[in-house]
């Protein structure tokens, strides 16, 4: 650059910096606009990311697990007939090694629960409590009584809402009815030993937990299970876990990652990436008009000087570089301030934003009502890269025009 123009880079930087502050009001206004734009890009992205991450995490907790093994017909027809045999040696070995972090065998069948006052349809979950907790069940969510204590626990844990619906209470007995493999009604009295609070209120009415062994005995299914849920690693990168489990499971069982178990959740991740990019570009476009305008005005004001410098031997290329440098300085400064502002506003919100005012609305979207902004490096890099790269490209036009003035005409211009 310096050889072309006869001006060293430090000299040109100083020149650009001074030009930038010659009309400080204009520069400050543009700087503010860039700062607010960059802040909005990052802040909004962090909020949306946080919302979608929470939605996916809650969704995965509800599945539960990142990968599940089912009988091929189970998902379409969740019947006891479509159960899996107890995991064999090969699968057990695979489930004990990385990347598997935890796994749980579960019985999951439609059932009816009756108190002396009312009857409801529910999903009966037969679980191994210790494994269920490893998989993500939060023991803190049992708000009264206790969670199950073992696979052969004789008690039942129901949701808080279900307790109200059935007009019964902790310690009372209820009857659970389902179907055994011969399509005979299988029923059994259970004592309610615990009450849980669901992440989403609908879960409190949908799930009841009983011991895995107790449930298998009730339904006469031996060691069979409805599903095996497996977790391990980050939800964004489920491929390795899926492949690992799949290799250990032979034909005759279906192994699916969460993105396919809940296609809505899987899609959200992709749609979110698209949304972030569109949002960043829209904000940039809104900024770009102001940016071009500012540069054009700055160049217009000093046409005479440009002409003079050219007449003194400065090359057009040097003028182009100088204007670009000026633009990049403005952009870099705006990015710096915008990033700082974004971090400064997101950090205090790390503890979560309480949105319980519209909790039921968020439940429709599958989100619980506390929102945790998620600032990811990927989004930060993307926002900054878009502004610098596209900003550079939009500055080319005014910079190129500045370099095309004819010295004599430029000097003659008033």
């Amino acid at each position, binding site marked *: 650059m310096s050889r072309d123009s006869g001006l060293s880079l430090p000299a040109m930087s100083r020149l650009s910096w001074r030009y930038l502050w010659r009309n400080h009001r204009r520069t400050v206004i543009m700087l503010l606009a860039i700062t607010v734009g960059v802040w909005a890009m990052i802040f909004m992205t962090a909020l949306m990311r946080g919302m979608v991450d929470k939605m996916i995490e809650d969704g995965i907790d509800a599945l539960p697990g990142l990968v599940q093994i089912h009988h091929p017909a189970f998902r379409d027809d969740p019947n006891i007939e479509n159960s899996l045999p107890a995991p064999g040696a090969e699968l057990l070995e695979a489930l004990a090694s990385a990347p598997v972090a935890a796994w749980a065998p579960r019985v999951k069948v439609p059932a009816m629960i009756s108190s002396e006052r009312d009857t409801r349809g529910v999903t009966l979950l037969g679980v191994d409590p210790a494994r269920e907790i490893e998989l993500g069940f939060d023991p803190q969510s049992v708000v009264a009584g206790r969670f199950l204590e073992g696979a052969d626990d004789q008690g039942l844990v129901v949701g808080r809402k279900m307790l109200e619906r059935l007009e019964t209470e902790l310690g009372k007995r209820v009857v659970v009815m389902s179907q055994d493999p011969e399509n005979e009604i299988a029923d059994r009295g259970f004592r309610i030993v615990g009450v849980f609070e669901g992440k989403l209120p609908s879960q409190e009415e949908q799930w009841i937990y009983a011991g895995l062994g107790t449930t298998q005995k009730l339904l006469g299914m031996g060691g069979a299970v409805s599903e095996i849920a497996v977790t391990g690693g980050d939800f964004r990168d489920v491929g390795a876990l899926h492949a690992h489990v799949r290799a250990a499971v032979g034909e005759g069982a279906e192994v699916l990652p969460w993105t396919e178990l809940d296609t809505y959740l899987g899609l959200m991740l992709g749609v979110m990436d698209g949304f972030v990019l569109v949002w960043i570009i829209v904000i940039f476009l809104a900024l770009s008009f102001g940016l071009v305008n500012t540069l054009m005005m700055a160049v217009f004001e000093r046409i005479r000087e440009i002409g003079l410098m050219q007449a003194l031997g400065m090359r057009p290329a040097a003028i182009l570089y100088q204007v670009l440098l000026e633009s990049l300085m403005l952009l870099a400064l705006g990015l710096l301030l915008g990033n700082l502002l974004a971090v400064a506003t997101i950090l205090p919100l790390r503890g979560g934003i309480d949105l319980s005012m519209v909790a*039921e609305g968020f439940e429709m979207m599958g989100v619980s009502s506390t929102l945790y902004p998620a600032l990811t490096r990927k989004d930060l890099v993307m926002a900054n890269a878009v502004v610098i790269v596209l900003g550079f490209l939009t500055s080319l036009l005014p910079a190129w025009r500045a370099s095309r003035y004819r010295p004599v005409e430029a000097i003659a211009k008033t």
Partner: protein
Amino acid sequence: MTLNLRMAWRNLWRHKRRTWLTVTAMIFSNVLLVFMISLQFGSYEMMIVNTLQTFSGHLQVQAAGYQDNPRLRTSIPAIESLAQALQQTLRETLPGARAAPRAAAFALASSERRSFAIQLVGVQPSAEPGVSTLPGLVTSGRYLRDGGDPEIVIGSVMSRNLKAGVGDEITLLGAGRDGSFAAGVVTVVGVFDSGSADMDRGIAEVPLDWFQDAFAMADHGNTIAIAVERLADVPPAVRVAAAMASARGDEAGSLLVLDWNDLYPGLRQAIQADLFSGWFMYGVLIFLVAFSVLNTQLMSVLERTREFGVISALGIRPRKLAALVMLETAQMALIGLGVGLLLGWLVAQYFNVHGFSYPGMEQIAERYNLPGEMYPRVTLGTLLLGPSVVFAFCLLAAIYPAVRLFRLRPVEAMRAA
């Protein structure tokens, strides 16, 4: 006044490129706002209408306490005659109003091979099509007939799960209103496919007369679903129904009228949450455009310092100069408004006819009872809302440059470079 207008117009075009860039920024945000807002409102309306039309109706009459805790015995006596009376009274003011009585209970449904807990709804077969689209969505067999025969219509997923189709028998087990054991055998006469997996899996309908017999309800029922022609008819319908319900309610416990907002609190909140995040985004966009205007107008004032100095030395008041700057801004913003509105309208209208969709939307939309394509709602309100806010903020942005003129000292200004 015309002189001022002409002067402002000429000033505006002294820097053609600058003015056009600023106007383009306005047009850009206006088109975006018009499209986004009409799309938002289009999807809200569709969300409400689709949610309500399939099953619940626009409003419901229920016994007090039923909404929070829907129990069979929280019931309305003589429900069929009440529903009929309601429909008659409503039609005096709202000719399109329809009312249908219902009763609902959980029951265990068993086919030959399967058993599932379901939500069993007793309906009046002739009245039901007026308030719900389910009867029209029967894809095999037929809908129920009046007369109280032991027949049932089930959802497509339920039919698959129960492995029972038209002609098969289903045994229903539940608890009656008095707590007694309720049981009966019904024949599947139809299968509906609503497109909502939850509904197709969980809901089955039987004739109300049969339901009342089987569940020891006598002439009781649980809800009266009411449908009106337009969403705007809901508030007057609620008033009429509430008056009737309170007159009637004194006889046996109190009756409540709930509109769609009470029936689905989540629906309104989802809309509010979406509106809120929408306005945050629009706010940022409008702010950036306003800054663009501020910059342009400030520069245009600063570069005319000498000129303004001369004019004010000639005795023109600063107030007039400020008005001139505001007028220039207003003209610029008007062009932005006009062109933005026109282009935005064209875009919205195009998608209003052809539908708007993006990859993956179909599955996401299903969650909100929406079809795979969205149709923007093009009304004067959705068209003007965004651009008029942009217009207002552009004018606000010009206040600072205009106010600066009050501090103008003619002599110094004339000496300015």
